């Protein structure tokens, strides 16, 4: 099994409590959760958020393999953040000195906190996009005021991401078959990738040209008001979640801004 998956879809279908929440409520959770993660700098608090989110996703039956894929995807970025941070941050006393570079414990900690924050925000987003189908996702936006045509474009755009990833993989294979070997340094590789980008774009454009014709032939854009097959509806559980969630977030924001909650790097709250 030597091929990388041609595409990866974050969404995992299911019928858990989280799956059944209205997409607008989940969007609210994302906004609240991200705000807190960005407000806090306490490493323990951020790690707790990560742990909690993982627990919720696990309870919602979200595949562990997908969680692992997300970690693998953001992992390199997190490592870069931790490693690069000390180059710009000289606060504290040096642990190691490498010529002009001083690495301080404080800088390493700050880098780690930033990485934890990035990871927390990523996984908070996963609560939403991991348990919401594209259709519901877009209906959520449309009910929040996004024009129908935009909603349709968004749906198609999101649907196209896996397709485009697939095209990119195939084109890479086609160019390798023509003798392309991706090697050398970063810049060299970038130059070698150019043919792949051009062919991918051409293939994608031809595909979207087809799509545009298909849509037109199915009378997309002919009427202003569209009928919707199955619309989303806020239930009592949705309202409860929204109200409780908003109260919790508001309290935590208040504590953080006025009472210094989560504002120390390491002190346990």
């Amino acid at each position, binding site marked *: 099994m030597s091929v990388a998956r041609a595409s990866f879809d974050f969404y995992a279908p299911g019928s858990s409590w989280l799956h059944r929440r209205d997409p607008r409520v989940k969007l609210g959770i994302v906004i609240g959760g991200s705000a807190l993660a960005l407000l806090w700098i306490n490493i323990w608090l951020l790690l707790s958020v990560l742990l909690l989110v993982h627990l919720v996703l696990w309870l919602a039956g979200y595949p562990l393999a997908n969680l692992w894929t997300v970690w693998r995807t953001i992992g390199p970025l997190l490592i870069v953040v931790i490693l690069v941070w000390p180059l710009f941050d000289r606060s504290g006393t040096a642990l190691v000195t490498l010529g002009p570079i001083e690495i301080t414990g404080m800088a390493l900690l700050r880098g780690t906190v930033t990485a934890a924050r990035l990871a927390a925000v990523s996984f908070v987003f996963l609560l939403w996009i991991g348990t919401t189908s594209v259709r519901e996702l877009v209906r959520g936006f449309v009910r929040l005021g996004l024009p129908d045509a935009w909603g349709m474009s968004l749906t198609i755009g999101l649907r196209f991401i896996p397709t485009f990833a697939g095209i990119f993989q195939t084109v890479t294979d086609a160019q390798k078959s*023509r003798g392309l070997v991706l090697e050398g340094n970063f810049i060299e590789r970038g130059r070698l990738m150019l043919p792949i980008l051009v062919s991918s774009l051409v293939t994608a454009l031809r595909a979207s040209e087809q799509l545009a014709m298909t849509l037109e032939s199915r009378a997309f854009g002919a009427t202003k008001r569209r009928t919707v097959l199955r619309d989303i509806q806020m239930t009592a559980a949705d309202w409860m979640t929204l109200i409780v969630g908003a109260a919790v977030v508001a309290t935590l924001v208040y504590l953080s801004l006025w009472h210094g909650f989560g504002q120390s790097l390491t002190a346990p709250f």
Partner: protein
Amino acid sequence: MSQAESLVVVDGVSFSYDRQDGPIQTALDDVSLTIRRGELIGLVGQNGSGKSTLARHLNGLLLPDAGRVLVGDVDTRETEPGRLAGTVGYVFQNPDHALFLPTVREEIAYGLQFQALDESEAAARASTALAAFGLTQVADKHPASFGRGTRRLIVLAAAYAMAPALLVLDEPTGGLDYRLTSRLVETLRAYIAAGNSVVLISHDMQLVANTCDRVLALSDGRLIADGPPGRLFRDRDMLASTGLNVPDVARIAQALPETLVDPDTVAIDDFVEQFQRTVMKRELR
């Protein structure tokens, strides 16, 4: 056949795609075969039978889960597809996956830059390939400006220009009309005559019957037949069970008395020739 003539050896290869949804899909199941110099091989099978997957193993784009693929004496695991491109050329099903340069000539010369050729030789090779596929007149036009048939000819010519000892063509006749198909077949025959080999993947059984001297049939990832087309197309039960159709010529040859036409006849030219020899001669007498 001596060992020295073998070009590619597929030895007990099994392969499954890594799927996130559903059960693991076995795309190749213990496939073994040897491709020798000077062979024009047809590769047939239903949609999803594993033809493209096998083709992608021949130049190392896919690596076997079990077994091995040897190109010359190099294991595909020990090299990269790009480095095998001079030996095994592979033309994809969709020409758009390969095209990216502003002129047909540059497109055809592209692969040659990876081979250690001097400039005049590279130019000569490109011109030969352009001529072989009837593209000389349009050499300075933009590839994207052409219809699907011509775009396909361009990628075929680009692979041909690199003069690989084995040329693997995935559905090369899609979008080609009768005239262009015949021309392609002639070009391939000349290429074989020069000691190269071709693997032709196709759903067109009559085309395979007319052109190939050996046919490989895949069904659910297993190699269920490997031999001359006459033998394959006589085994009706096997064909029916794998959903492959019998070429018209084979059907007629099998229906006629053996004294008129050899029942193993599958190619149209072959049929006409025998028919002329037996029936027409009788008529003239």
